[in-house]
């Protein structure tokens, strides 16, 4: 599978911002339709972006499908699974906003599986059923890479859930994609992966000049990056949640941290022009480079 050097992230599309409530509200207003998301994706594609991240959220998925119609196999889709509350609301019919109700309904719906897991200690059947449902939900986007959501990946690593991590890998490979994980604790989780002897060919983790979310320390993350030569790293939070300018963030990620790829969330067409324009300047010919990544 081809993993592009620079990719479009999706945080603004689901109103995630580290710049305060006003920006979150603005993103929510701005990205309230499939068309508005598609517009930013399309502009990013026009300036040469071929990698697109997507959470398993309905509007993002529909925008990606629309883009696929135009770009076909020349684009790479990186899906993050599962969107926990989205999965709950799909399973239970509760509104994604009503998290408490969705949680309660989810618990009732899965009570037999939970009770069986309580007796046997084996969560796999329940997780497998959720994974299968979520894979079905994103199937039409034809994902090339499927990454395990950071919160779940972190929990699975520190609690040493080797079986669940392997199950995730297996299901992703069966779906014809390359498995990976995202993490907010690279230094800690990577150590656990080594201890468990679990390998993921792709790991997405924060790398930025401010050290934002580089846990447990900047140094530890850089060491992992250096030592893990069999892993393709995608740098996220490259602009430190909007705290540093794109040139500085990109130079740090590619030149100092040495990640192969980056993913950047973009909030508007103009921002796509500006940020990816800078990426082109920083990377030169490398901008359109794609890594060939195998599933194992």
């Amino acid at each position, binding site marked *: 599978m081809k993993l592009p050097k620079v990719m479009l992230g999706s945080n603004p599309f689901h109103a995630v911002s580290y710049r305060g409530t006003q920006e979150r509200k603005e993103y929510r207003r701005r990205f309230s339709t499939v068309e508005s998301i598609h517009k930013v994706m399309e502009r990013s594609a026009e300036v040469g972006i071929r990698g697109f991240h997507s959470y398993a959220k309905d509007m993002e998925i529909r925008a990606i499908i629309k883009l696929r119609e135009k770009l076909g196999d020349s684009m790479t889709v990186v899906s993050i699974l599962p969107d926990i509350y989205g999965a709950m609301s799909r399973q239970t019919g509760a509104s994604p906003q009503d998290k408490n109700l969705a949680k309660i309904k989810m618990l009732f719906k899965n009570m037999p599986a939970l009770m069986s897991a309580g007796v046997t200690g084996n969560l796999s059947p329940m997780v497998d059923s959720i994974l299968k449902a979520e894979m079905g939900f994103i199937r039409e986007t034809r994902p090339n890479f499927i990454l395990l959501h950071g919160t779940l990946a972190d*929990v699975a690593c520190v609690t040493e859930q080797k079986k669940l991590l392997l199950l995730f890998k297996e299901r992703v490979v069966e779906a014809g994609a390359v498995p990976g994980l995202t993490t907010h604790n690279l230094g800690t989780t990577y150590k656990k992966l080594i201890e468990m002897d679990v390998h993921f060919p792709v790991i997405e983790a924060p790398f930025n000049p401010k050290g934002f*979310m580089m846990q447990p320390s900047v140094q530890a993350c850089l060491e992992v990056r250096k030592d893990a030569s069999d892993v393709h790293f995608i740098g996220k939070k490259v602009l430190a949640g909007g705290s540093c300018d794109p040139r500085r963030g990109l130079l740090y990620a590619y030149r100092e941290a040495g990640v192969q790829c980056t993913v950047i969330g973009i909030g508007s067409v103009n921002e796509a022009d500006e940020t990816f324009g800078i990426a082109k300047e920083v990377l030169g010919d490398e901008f359109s480079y794609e890594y060939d990544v195998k599933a194992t």
Partner: protein
Amino acid sequence: MQEKVRIAVAGMGEMGMVRAVIAKGLSQYELVCVIDPRGTLARLAGKQFGVNHFSSYAKAASAKEFDALVISTPLESHYELGMQAVRDGKHVLCEKPLAGNSSRAMEMHREAQKNDVKAQVGYNWRFHVTFKKAKEILENGLLGELKYARLMVYKSEVTKPEEKSEKKNREERFGFYGALAVHGLDLLLWYAGKPNSLNAMTTRVFSSELSDLISAVCRFDKGVHGVIDLGWSHHGFIDKDEMSVYLTGTTGSMNVNPDCIEMYLEKECPDFPCGDSIIYASEIPCHTEFWFTHRGLSHEMEAFAHAVLQRTSASPSWYDGYLVDRLVEALEDSGRSKKIISPVVEESE
């Protein structure tokens, strides 16, 4: 010297699970067992965490060696479990609110003191980067002498009539205070000091036992003038709770929320210019061995481990927990009686 805190977590609801995950992620802890009266849940959690599970604290305490207990059970059991654990010589991190009743909270504090154990209450927002940085700014005197503090906590959690069972469930959990407001009140007390007097107006929009909208003016120690503005029946706060503290001193002001600190200083200081400036959470160095959720929970648990292992003070202490419980009572009393409450706090540490 002891290297790890051997810890048990009581209550395998959402918070208990989070606490257990963080304990697994931090090398200062060895998670020894989990406790929950719901057998299936306890067994499942025990197996997932690879530790023993028990249906009660008493069984865990008699069977297992642990130094510290996290109480993540519903509020009504905090007092009983907390008292028992400190009498057994366990260090305790108890979720907020401490007891939901100031007399009981004070008893818990006294008992912990008597048994010489570390007793911390889960006011984790103190460990969030922006609120922690604001405390440093205040202590370094950048605002001069503090004169005014305003707390605002808004949520959209109860914006329509609820079913009887849901209402009962919420009120047993201390209503809006238990949901988020106590965190804000703790921050306010942390910055402004003990409250001396207050005059509150309260409104029950949908709840029957506790208020949904609370406003008060108060006077704190050292003459700081304060305003409290709390409500969970506001509309439109759908993605993130609105919690902010505005502080004014003799040489500057700042508005602190989970995303950033907005400052205005009359004079230039080492890290801040004269006039307006803003510092975002993402710009403040903040490292932990295992980061889990944005609310400062990992740092809070690191601080508790530090207090236990290094024998330093646990903070926020159970006395701080008492102060918040007392402040809530005073707000409700004043709102109900339409009278000024003074003094608010009669018990010293």
